């Protein structure tokens, strides 16, 4: 049995946002596959849960001319099985399919995945385990167990879908009592394990828009210990556009390696010419420069730092060679 809370089941997004504004101690719940286990472990103790499952407008999925609009409540199983997405935005379909297991994906939603709580081996534990270790700053305690001298928390963002949407140039739509605002997905995240979303207290993630631009190839993959039901110790997404023999545009993003999904910058020297070893070496460097894997999982940091560029090179080469 979970600790006590009240459950509200609004029928519209506007009503859900109004409830959120009226109840500071509330949380949204979508598929519940992240939040309910966290509540059971004492990692969240909401007074009110606002169930978005009854809000039909959040399940909209449609293509308008040059972009795909995905309602926040669309499930990952739906995204992974959508033929348009598989063909035009393969990184997104692959990332959705890489999340947890099939039963999770049937319930898990896009918004829940993008708003996933950050994770750490000192945080995602039972109450008694955390008590025995005197907690950590993300909840109750006062130091970050993976960086005890630091003033901030380094819990890692470990959602699979965000890096794919970052390289696909997605925009998020946030709905608040004042209406809708749009942000590039990269600006939705902050590099802080305790405060990783640029989401106002009374805002909800309402929809995601992904450009359907011609000529882009994309892919996502993650390192995993088991073939299913495994958060990514590291995940990498790549998108590129080729013009003849030259790489015309290139984007890369990582998950599991920092407190936010990281869009890798500084890749400009690779474009305007064919992919070569020097370009791959620069990609390695930029990945390691832009990310900061810490001991947030049992998978050791040196391994994650070594495997991240290996995975990125493999994905980039495969895309480049078609």
């Amino acid at each position: 049995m979970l600790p006590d809370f009240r459950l509200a089941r609004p029928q519209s997004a506007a009503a859900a946002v109004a409830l959120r504004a009226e109840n500071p101690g509330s949380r949204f719940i979508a598929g519940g596959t992240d939040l309910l286990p966290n509540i059971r472990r004492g990692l969240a103790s909401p007074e009110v849960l606002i169930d978005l499952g009854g809000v039909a407008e959040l399940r909209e999925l449609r293509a308008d001319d040059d972009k795909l609009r995905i309602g926040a409540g669309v499930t990952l199983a739906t995204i992974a099985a959508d033929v348009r997405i598989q063909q035009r935005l393969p990184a997104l379909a692959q990332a959705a399919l890489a999340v947890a297991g099939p039963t999770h994906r049937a319930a898990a939603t896009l918004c829940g995945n993008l708003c996933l709580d950050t994770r750490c081996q000192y945080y995602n534990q039972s109450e008694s385990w955390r008590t025995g270790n005197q907690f950590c700053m993300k909840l109750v305690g006062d130091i970050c167990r993976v960086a005890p001298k630091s003033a901030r928390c380094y819990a890692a963002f470990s959602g699979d879908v965000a890096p794919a949407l970052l390289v696909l140039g997605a925009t998020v739509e946030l709905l608040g009592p004042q209406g809708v605002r749009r942000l590039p997905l990269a600006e939705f995240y902050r590099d802080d394990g305790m405060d990783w979303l640029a989401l106002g207290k009374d805002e909800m993630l309402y929809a995601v828009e992904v450009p359907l631009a011609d000529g882009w190839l994309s892919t996502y993959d993650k390192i995993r210990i088991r073939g299913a039901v495994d958060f990514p110790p590291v995940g990498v997404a790549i998108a590129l556009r080729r013009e003849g023999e030259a790489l015309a545009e290139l984007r890369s993003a990582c998950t599991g390696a920092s407190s936010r999904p990281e869009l890798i910058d500084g890749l400009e020297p690779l474009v305007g010419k064919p992919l070569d070893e020097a370009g791959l070496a620069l990609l390695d460097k930029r990945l390691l420069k832009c990310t900061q894997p810490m001991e947030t999982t049992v998978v050791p940091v040196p391994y994650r730092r070594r495997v991240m560029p290996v995975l990125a090179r493999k994905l980039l080469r495969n895309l480049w060679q078609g």
Partner: protein
Amino acid sequence: MKNILGIWVNGRWREDAVADNALLLDYLRDGLGLTGTKQGCDGGECGACTVLVDGEPRLACSTLAHSVAGRRVETVESLASDGNLSRLQRAFHEHLGTQCGFCTPGMLMAAEALLRKNPKPDRAAIRAALAGNLCRCTGYVKIIESVEAAANAGVAA
């Protein structure tokens, strides 16, 4: 706080007063005495609690009872009829797909959902459908063989 939950469980419409914070698992096991659905972990890791909601597998430990109001829930208790095991249950029994039995209700429900959609799955499809269900006893091979045997024996259930 309790509210009235209207829901189909194993083919019967029910209306029960159910606490807001009750998981579907709590409602089935403690409210209705349907203890076939197991809790094998502290949330989302093992698949032992798998039931069907409108024919799709769902983790009852990670679902609030009220969030599936009005929908059709099926548990392992619905598989046998008149004391006879379903074809899938029989296949698990005959092909040693069950040992301690703790994962079995979840395995059966995940496999049941698969066979309804895809009556002749290959091994890869069976593995993919059961990827979220852990078993500490069988080593999985016997489970996959059981599902294959049920498929070869004809339609599911």
